[in-house]
């Protein structure tokens, strides 16, 4: 991970925060109010100390402290809501990419799920804690210095001068520890990853009696990461110590200046005459000068987490090329021609494939597991990248059309549904599908009995997976949806896997019927389904 990557991660996070409308004005106002209330507290405290312990002064003390607490509470709530908006925006963008993911992409489904759920949640602290703390740390010291200047301009200058060693120390420590801290963070993430992987593989480790070996591996990884981490922390904690040092320095210098000024022992003539109340007011505010920076240091871990998550999310979003929305062309069935098509994912190349999927007929694609049957089907939708070759359908070139999704209907082996009723899902197949035509199609694919068995019939609610339906019913529903779309190209991925012979025969007959007016392509392992096809394309 290089420095420029880190900068890019920060820019990415900053842009995401902006897009979710950072409540900048409100947060800044709250910071200013907090400083004003702190100054009010210092003022009332000075009054109380110089003998005015009247109820208004005590009430002022209490009110300023409570007011400051309320500003902190309000900023937390605002920032939490901003973080929520930011995460939702990021998630929406990433979801679009995830659902347009091409087969064979480097990131696995598991990684993408983790990225979209866990990694984006890991950014919460960055937006809800780190960014507000950073804003505070930029504004608050200057405003505090301004408030101190009301009582003692020289003390304010003294505070501002401590920024010189502060910035210098931070720059030194930052350069030394920035990259190292990142490496350490990654090392920790790795040992955590190894641990969780071995925990998940525990059944296998147990049956192979490899407990001792794998325990030793986990121990060695933890040991090594611990040793490396200490080397990093020695440097990283310098910045913590530096912050502590300048905080102490700010207080001590203000105290020394004010004290010697009150004693009249200053070696120079100050441009102001201090009295005790002014001096005490300045001193009370002195610890606040670096308070925001110290809170920022406390949010350092959130920053690391957020940046690391951003780096991974960025790689997902950058990799994505949103597939063009294919135009829904109402075409008639036409032959699909494949000329020397090769697909590549990772180390594996499928093809070259030369084939014609004839219209008004069923083509079965068969071949051993991993030979690329499903990938070939998804390639027709533009969801698997073609390495070389060309595909056309009735004169329409696929590369130009960006895939035939608009012309195609699909039924797969694990269909997904939208939250809504069975009929809603059927009617979503294409615009213009009515309730009646949906019911008729359900009957056509043999779902009537299944609908009648359910109390709410076609209005039975489904979740994403279609829970509550049997495997066979889900398959029929997916087929009905595919047949409802007036698409000339029907793509079926293992439509009969795991079905009993009777159901398989019924579905096969439906597929044969569907070939009238369509080009049907079926990827299958089933010999009986392949036997029912008009032609077979065999992948090696």
């Amino acid at each position, binding site marked *: 991970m290089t420095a420029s990557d880190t900068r890019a991660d920060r820019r990415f996070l900053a842009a995401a925060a902006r897009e979710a409308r950072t409540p900048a004005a409100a947060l800044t106002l709250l910071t200013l109010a907090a400083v004003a209330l702190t100054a009010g507290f210092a003022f009332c405290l000075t009054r109380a*100390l110089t003998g005015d312990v009247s109820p208004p002064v*005590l009430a002022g*003390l*209490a009110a300023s402290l*409570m007011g*400051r*607490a309320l500003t*902190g509470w309000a900023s*937390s709530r605002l920032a939490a809501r901003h973080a*929520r908006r930011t995460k939702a925006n990021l998630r*929406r963008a990433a979801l*679009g990419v995830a*659902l347009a993911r091409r087969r064979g992409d480097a990131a696995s489904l598991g990684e993408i799920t983790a990225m979209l*759920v866990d990694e984006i*949640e890991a950014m*919460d602290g960055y937006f809800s804690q780190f960014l507000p703390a950073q804003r505070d740390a930029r504004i608050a010291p200057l405003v505090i210095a301004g408030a101190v200047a009301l009582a003692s301009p020289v003390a304010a200058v003294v505070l501002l001068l401590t920024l010189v060693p502060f910035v210098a120390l931070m720059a030194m420590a930052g350069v030394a520890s920035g990259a190292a801290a990142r490496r350490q963070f990654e090392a920790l993430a790795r040992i955590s990853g190894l*641990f969780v992987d071995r*925990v*998940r593989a525990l*059944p296998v480790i*147990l*049956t192979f*009696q490899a*407990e001792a*070996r*794998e*325990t030793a591996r*986990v*121990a060695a990884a*933890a040991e090594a990461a*611990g040793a490396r*981490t200490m080397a990093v*922390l020695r440097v990283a*904690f310098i910045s913590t*110590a530096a912050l*502590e*040092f300048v905080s*102490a*320095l700010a207080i001590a210098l203000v*105290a020394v200046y004010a004290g*010697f000024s009150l*004693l009249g022992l200053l070696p120079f003539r100050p441009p102001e005459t201090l009295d005790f109340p002014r*001096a*005490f007011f300045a*001193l009370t505010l002195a*610890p606040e000068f670096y308070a925001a920076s110290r809170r920022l240091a406390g949010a350092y871990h959130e920053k690391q987490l957020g940046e690391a998550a951003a780096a991974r999310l960025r790689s997902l979003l950058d990799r994505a090329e949103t597939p063009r*929305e294919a135009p829904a062309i109402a075409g008639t069935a036409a032959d699909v021609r494949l000329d020397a098509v090769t697909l590549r994912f990772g180390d594996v190349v499928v093809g070259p494939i030369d084939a014609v999927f004839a219209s008004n007929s069923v083509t079965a694609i068969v*071949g051993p*597991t*991993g030979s690329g049957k499903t990938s070939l089907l998804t390639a027709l939708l533009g969801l698997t990248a073609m390495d070389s070759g060309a595909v056309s359908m009735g004169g329409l070139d696929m590369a130009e059309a960006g895939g035939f*999704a608009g012309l*195609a209907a699909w039924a797969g082996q694990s269909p*997904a549904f*939208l939250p809504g009723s069975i009929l809603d899902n059927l009617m979503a197949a294409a615009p213009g599908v009515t309730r009646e035509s949906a019911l008729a199609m359900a009957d056509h694919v043999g779902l009537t009995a299944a609908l009648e068995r359910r109390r709410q019939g076609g209005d039975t609610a489904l979740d*994403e*997976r279609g829970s509550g339906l049997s495997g066979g019913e889900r398959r029929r529903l997916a087929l009905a*949806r595919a047949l409802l*779309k007036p*698409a000339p190209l029907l793509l079926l991925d293992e439509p009969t896997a795991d079905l009993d012979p009777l159901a398989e025969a019924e579905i096969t007959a439906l597929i044969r019927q569907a070939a009238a007016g369509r080009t049907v392509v079926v990827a299958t*392992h089933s010999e009986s389904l392949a036997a029912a096809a008009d032609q077979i394309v065999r992948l090696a």
Partner: protein
Amino acid sequence: MNAPSPTRAFLAARARRGWPDLLAAAACGAATAGATTLLLGLSGWFLAGAALAGAGGPLAVQAFNYLLPSAGFRALAILRTGGRYGERLLGHRAAFGALAALRPALFAGLAASPPEQALRLSSGEASARMVQDVNATETMFVRRSAPWAAAAGAGAAAAAIAPASGWAALVFLAGLGLQLAVSEALAGRMTDGPARQTQQAAGRLKGALNTYMAAAAELRCFGLTDAAVEALMTHDAALGGAMIRARDAEALLGLTQSAISAVTLVLVAALTAHGGLALAALAVLAALAGQEGVLGLLRAAEQNSAYAEAVRRLDPLLEAPPAASAPPTSGSRLEIDGVALEPGDRLSVTGVSGVGKTRTLEALVGLCPPAAGRIRIDGTPLEDRPPGWARPLFAFAPQDCRLLTGTVAENLRLGRPDANDETLWEALADARLDTRVRQLSQGLATWIGDGGDQLSGGERRRLSLARAYLRDAPWLLLDEPTEGLDRAVEADLVAALDRRLARTGQGAVIVSHRPAPITLCNRSLPMEPRA
């Protein structure tokens, strides 16, 4: 706390071993907190003294000893800086020393715990939860110096307040005590619910996302991708809402703390104001700074309930494992549901889904408890032996074929750690995966991704088979070894398995829906659903 917690005991033992670091970290933490408090207090006292002396004329000024406070400032600033550095570094060093041992101990404990419990914890969400628990214990370990720092900060402040007013010092300490008590009492109650809801919402989002990603092609065909994104965003909204409730609870807790602290400060100011300018200045500023030293302890107290939960979940893993008993001999005779098997026999187990075929294999290798009397080894019922006792007898290729994140070779060597490459290739050839692995860019050393997800389902299955082939055990347990393979590959693989079994003289128990693997077997066990 009725029984001593093994996790706490483990951490305490590690803490004893790292005591020099922990002691030094606590001393540094105390020095920092004390110095922070006294620095501000001393500053106030110095200002007041200087103001009084300045007003008293040149003689009073000459009599005012400013050298001592100036030296004090320097000493306190150095103490505060060095103390903070030492506290952070030594605290972390002690934590790493202790916790490098925690993960392996937990893993070993998990492996030794009863199978049902171990397997429940090794499933997806539970394992992620366990990592969070380990992290929570780490955080608490680093905070071990917090009570000392708090005590030093509070003690120094109370000592600085007392000269002005003893009552004020008491009020100050009572205020801190109340803050701590509130943290302890409320934090868990306020944040546990939203935290649990957050986790559930995240789980639902993941489930829905997996379903839609697997159906990306179909969504695209029907133009439903955007609708799917919207459907997923309703899960996001639920997650966001739960998170907001958690954050709001934290903010409210913070507000409560600040309110208590405000009341304390006002009372201290009111009670000390008449104690003389210098002492009053010392008192109020020390009270102001003394609050800070307690912050670490307050944070720790807020996390206490989460920490206790984490410890409670980790505890069962660190309980002492049962004593080992003598392993079975390799010439053992096996009896399953009354079918007696001699070494070298091949048994087919068939039956409809859900009849318990997979469970039978899992019971043999001790991944689930065996039903009474169903399985005997050398005549002894398996349930009379400790769980996992029979594992040396079996090489298991399970149905879900879980692979380790790592290389092809690492996965294969799980079966035989000392195998050379030639042996590995031989097993791959018998599993009909050698050609595919030769195509991979780095052959045996190719990284197969998280849980082997760079491989297809059929490839993972065959790698899992090859791994089982490599294990030197008298029986192979194969659960659906050819599922998802096409007929040609299946026939080829079954023939290779036949030759391999003849060569090694191993027996086999094969569960399959498909006829080809069954043809290898000389014994059969058709399982019937139990009434």
